[in-house]
């Protein structure tokens, strides 16, 4: 046989096998019995369990696997069977593996029911656009009434993609606010006045004092390479990509932030700080910084939430105080910080929604899934306080923010009783960003977005941390972003935004 014939033969073989395989993969029945589910919902909104067939819901959640999960799951199942005649099969996928693994699982057509999604892991937007999730609006109306009652409506508003909801955001802090965190030790030692500090420029005298009076191993401005000077803008694709719209915009135009006077000014300031030695010399390559652990720092930058100082001080072991850089703002991305979505492969979307409804309204279930079993993993103190037992840290430490309504969860000793009220106040006091609710579909410009992302990784950390001279590198960066097609991305975003805006009226 000649080589040509052989390769043809093997090609044919591949085709044949693919067909066989395709046959195997397709054997999937779709016998969703939504009729029964519909009947089970009674007029007062409660569910008549006797009308439901037993089902098992498959969940993929983010976070390290916990030793006691099977035990707790059994407990959850008892309760959920009682409520909606369903069982849970929970799989935890660790932080660093989550996006990649769930991406493969989803693409392969695995018929799971519920998965964690967000703006930072298993990215909500592109996957919703790709069709990974089930549209939830009708399901919400029928089986998720509780969710609509407890959730700040802006959560659902902000996570719509083309008018459709694909995920249930967790009720937590909705607004985003950056603060300067100060190490109180040094603030007190030099009697520094931080009451007037808001901008990067305001820090100058404080940083100078520390630099001049303390030894060189104290970092005055302790930030890693992800540091960004605060800009009053609404970012289109996260703060790494310099495209945004002014928060107080009148004309609703996306702009290239590198060309704004605010940024140029801020870069000049940070450059002077870098040269003065206020930052770590290697800040541009510093992934993380362990200032909290060492305590050798004056100020850094962090996102806050109500009573965050308490938590920070407690985990650091010394006092930390903060000054806000701006008023809290609600962005589209902050609404999508933690969500649970129903897979479009789910065979029981109705029951999945009922379960999500429970997670957002049922105090017992919500605390069970996060804190485990009473007297095994925690001890109940006076309502609503609990005390962790050693078993919690060892074998059931779940990431609470990724498991539905946080406002239902118990508090720990030392936390103020009005913690969740304060969250609600924080959320309602916040202003809403101009593009809130607008979700940019990157598909038409994905080539450009990928290229722009690459350029951003090359220039943004070194520019924004002052590691390079902005006079030389800013023009270079602007040119490179233009070559990568940033203008095309801006134009496409503007086009989509204008269409969206017109629809809103």
């Amino acid at each position, binding site marked *: 046989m000649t080589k040509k014939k052989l390769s043809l033969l*093997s090609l044919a*073989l*591949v*085709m044949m*096998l*693919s067909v066989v*395989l*395709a046959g195997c*993969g*397709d054997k*999937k029945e*779709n016998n969703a019995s939504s009729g029964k589910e519909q009947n089970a919902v009674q007029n007062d909104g409660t569910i008549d369990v006797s009308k439901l067939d037993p089902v098992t819901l498959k969940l993929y959640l983010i976070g390290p696997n916990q030793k006691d999960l099977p035990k707790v799951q059994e407990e959850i199942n008892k309760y959920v069977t009682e409520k909606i005649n369903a069982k849970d099969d929970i799989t935890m996928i660790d932080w660093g593996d989550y*996006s990649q693994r769930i*991406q493969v699982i*989803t*693409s*392969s*057509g695995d018929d799971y029911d519920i998965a964690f999604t967000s703006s930072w892991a298993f*990215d909500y937007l*592109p*996957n919703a656009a*790709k*069709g*990974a999730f089930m549209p939830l609006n009708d399901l919400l109306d029928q089986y998720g009434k509780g969710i609509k009652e407890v959730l700040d409506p802006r959560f659902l508003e902000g996570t719509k993609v083309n008018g459709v909801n694909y995920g249930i955001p967790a009720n937590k802090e909705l607004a985003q606010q950056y603060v300067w965190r100060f190490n109180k030790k040094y603030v007190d030692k030099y009697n520094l006045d931080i009451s007037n500090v808001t901008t990067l420029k305001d820090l100058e005298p404080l940083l100078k004092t520390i630099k001049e009076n303390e030894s060189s191993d104290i970092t005055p401005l302790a930030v890693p390479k992800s540091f960004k000077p605060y800009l009053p803008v609404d970012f289109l694709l996260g703060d790494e990509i310099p495209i945004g719209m002014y928060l107080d915009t009148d004309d609703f135009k996306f702009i290239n932030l590198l060309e704004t006077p605010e940024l140029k000014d801020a870069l000049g300031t940070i450059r002077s700080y870098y040269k003065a030695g206020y930052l*770590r*010399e*290697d800040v*541009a*390559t510093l*992934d993380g910084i362990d200032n909290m652990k060492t305590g050798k720092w004056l100020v850094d930058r962090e996102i806050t939430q109500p009573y965050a100082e308490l938590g920070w001080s407690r985990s650091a072991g010394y006092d930390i105080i903060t000054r806000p850089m701006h008023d809290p703002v609600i962005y589209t991305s902050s609404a999508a910080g933690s969500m649970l979505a129903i897979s*479009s*492969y789910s065979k029981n979307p109705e029951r999945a929604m009922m379960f999500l409804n429970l997670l957002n309204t049922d105090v017992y279930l919500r605390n069970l899934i996060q804190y485990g079993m009473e007297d095994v993993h925690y001890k109940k103190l006076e309502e609503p306080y609990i005390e962790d037992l050693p078993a919690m840290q060892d074998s059931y430490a779940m990431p609470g923010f990724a498991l539905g309504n946080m406002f239902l969860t118990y508090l720990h000793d030392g936390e103020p009783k009005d913690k969740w009220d304060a969250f609600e106040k924080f959320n309602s006091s916040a202003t809403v960003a101009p593009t809130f609710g607008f979700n940019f579909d*990157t*598909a038409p410009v*994905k*080539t*450009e*977005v*990928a*290229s722009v*992302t*690459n*350029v951003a*990784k*090359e*220039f*943004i*950390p*070194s520019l924004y941390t002052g*590691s*390079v001279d902005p006079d030389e590198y800013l023009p270079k960066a602007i040119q490179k972003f233009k*070559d*990568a*097609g940033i203008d095309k991305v801006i134009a496409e975003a503007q086009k989509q935004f204008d269409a969206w805006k017109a629809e809103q009226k």
Partner: protein
Amino acid sequence: MSAFFKKVIRNRALLVMILPGTIWFLIFAYLPMFGTVLAFKDFRISRDGFFASVINSEWVGFKNFEYLFSTNDAYIITRNTILYNLFFIFLGLIIAVTFAIMLSELVNKKMAKVYQTGMFLPHFLSWVIISYFAFTFLSMDKGTLNQIITFFGGDKISWYSEPKYWPFILVLVGIWKGVGYNSVVYLASLTGIDKSYYEAAVIDGATKWKQIRYITIPLLKPLMIILTILAIGGIFRSDFGLFYQLPKDSGALYPVTNVIDTFVYRGLINMGDIGMSTAAGLYQSLVGLVLILLANYIVRKIERDHAIF
């Protein structure tokens, strides 16, 4: 067709032998190969499973490949990928063979064994760990190298933002990590060489150098050629960790550290676009195929026996 069957019967023993491997190839290599079509599709998920998704996704031609060539960086990443790999292939070959020969000639065989074990160690360290280690040398304020430089009155060097040093650092570390592994391959083949060749050579009065030149190297040549041709096929792929972790993903170093793999990773990590990543893989495979065939063709012209195909 009966001629074909006769042939099958004639070769039945060897066919039975080759069967298990063939089954493996069919299931684990050929079955998944249909996924390659994704490179030409805009992958959208449809409710009826993966195959329905593949079939229902729209054909987009070469759109998924555009990203690879859309910017001026296309030239830089291609150049970097090829140049670094050429260094690794040829410098790595020379060093590995040299070490293998030196190891085999050492008088104290016990020491040779110790060396061999030691040289192997870097193979087990992940790039993350090696990048920590490199950092202790190159760190701006605490790094050993800067301490030495300042001791002799020089100025500190900001290693992670000076591109000019990195081609050297990358080649050095890349070869360092792989050379122990490769020497063992050559050493295994080397010790398999029939001792009587050397005995004859000694009787003929050949020096050690002559023996190496006229016996050892020619006998190692087939292996060297095979490994080199195969390495050339992988010239469009690079060791991701070396180019990503070691320079600590420092933007200032991109002109000299950006290779196809890091470029694809940085651009696509957040998007999770199967189509575009398949396209990138296909592009690398195709260029690899062309290069393998080319290298094989050249070898064939020069020395027919040593060609792979």
